[in-house]
């Protein structure tokens, strides 16, 4: 337990440094929240309150921002977030089927995380790779024209 707390403290220390570095920029809140999510993996209420205190702004404002943008999550996420594009082009080219295949392969539903904590299945609006529809994205890697489970298996196996 002590080790867990220590690890947590380290993360908060890093966040404090980031806030210190960025707080004089013009309205850095979204930038700070982005980095905070990188550090913690998600943005629980405690982290939001910590930022509120350090930046001297109401926690309610932060909550408002976090819940507005779908990039921010208040639930823990897997090591990799698998974003399926649900823009119109992907939708007509079979995004719903792709989601179904991914969901069966991973054994989780939309917005859920696999038990081993590797993947979170999520949807995202158009990623602008429409000519490759249907598309999903892991980190900075885009995978297009996914029409079979074999391809999905092969791709997922690259992410340990």
């Amino acid at each position, binding site marked *: 337990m002590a080790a867990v707390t220590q690890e947590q403290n380290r993360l908060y220390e890093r966040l404090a440094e980031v806030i210190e570095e960025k707080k004089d920029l013009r309205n850095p809140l979204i930038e700070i929240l982005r980095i905070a999510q990188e550090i913690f993996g998600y943005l629980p209420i405690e982290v939001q309150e910590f930022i509120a205190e350090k930046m001297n702004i109401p926690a309610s404002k932060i909550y408002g921002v976090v819940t507005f943008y779908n990039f921010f999550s208040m639930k823990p996420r897997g090591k990799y977030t698998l974003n399926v594009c649900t823009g119109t082009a992907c939708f007509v080219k079979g995004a719903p089927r792709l989601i179904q295949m991914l969901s069966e392969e991973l054994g989780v539903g939309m917005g859920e995380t696999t038990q081993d904590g590797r993947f979170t299945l999520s949807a995202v609006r158009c990623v602008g790779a429409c*000519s490759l529809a249907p598309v999903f994205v892991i980190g900075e890697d885009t995978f297009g024209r996914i029409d079979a489970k074999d391809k999905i298996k092969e791709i997922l196996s690259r992410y340990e």
Partner: protein
Amino acid sequence: MSLKRIDLLICCGSGCVSAGSLKIKERFHEVLAEHNITSEVNIIETGCMGPCDYGPVMVIYPEGIFYKKVTVDDVAEIVSEHFVKGRPVSRLMLHDEEKAIAAQKDVPFYQKQVKVALENCGYIDPESLDEYIATGGYEALGTVLTEMKPQDVIDLIKESGLRGRGGGGFPTHIKWQMVHDNKADEKYIICNGDEGDPGAFMDRSLLEGDPHRILEGMMIAAYAMGATNGFFYIRAEYPLAIKRIKMAIEQAKEVGLMGKDIFGSGFCFDAEVRTGAGAFVCGEEMALIHSIEGMRGNPTPKLHILLCRSWGKPTVVNNVETIGNIPTIFRKGAEWFSSMGTEKSKGTKVFALTGDIKNTGLVEVPMGITLRELIFDVGGGMIGNHKFKAVQLGGPSGGCLTVDHLDTGVDYESSKNAVP
């Protein structure tokens, strides 16, 4: 001492990267080393070349030969046949009724296109400031700063007839004039890269493929209206675009093309990137401004219908493609620009073609070209020669057009009238 005799341009736009172009690039490095000709070939990663459906694509100079759907296994043959023996590999070329089309310029996909904003996209290395300068980059900025008054700049844009490429088609010079005329200690310019319309990847490709062009265009606009700070608002879903713009800003600052007293003119400018966090509405101007201000991206009414304010200061929001046209307008002249297009819609327009069309990808055509030409000549027609049924033009606020509208011109007026 340069012994280079071949420029190998590999398309590293998002489409080709996901089709495997980076692996192909690695393979080229290996095979060139095996043949001991590494020193003779420049490998250049470019932005989107356009025909994404044929990805990964590449162009090889000096001949200008275009290869499509290249795989890792094809690399050895390209090197030993084409690079070593000078015999281009015809099976990797595009074929028109059994005849191989060798040169990129002869590929039908490119023939009705006129590239202004996309001029360098797929032709230069987007991460190289030198290559942008080689194509005449920053010359327009230098001329504007040292030889023109801000009002002259606005007048030239007025003369060119440039209108907002984000969809609304609002005349660019009116926006600039508003901010120019508004006295304030600080003014801002925002480049709207929150492209989110379904099927659209024009702005993404421009930011990724020619970032310095957007930077130069933004600075010319800033000078015209007296802005000293710029913001690039780019979606988090576009990580490569964010990286490239950040890199371009660093490079420009390093050589003094951005910062204090640019070209000795006294003009100072600084820009930064703000990342969107995923909310479609943030493409709307006021919502976008609130998002940059670090708040919820709620659209709010403006005090004046045209004038935006961020942090209470006059602000212009211009779309990526609009800004991308600016350097070329100053290099080639307002008259040149307004000679293209229709009476009210001047210049060219970039389109992202997607769906059941043969040549999906990124194209730039003169305003006013008909949908028929765009879909059948440039786009190659329907897959499997099926009957064309309908096309969606523009975003959610655009509309669906059917076969009855195929002879509609793609310009602001005609498309507005056609959409039911």
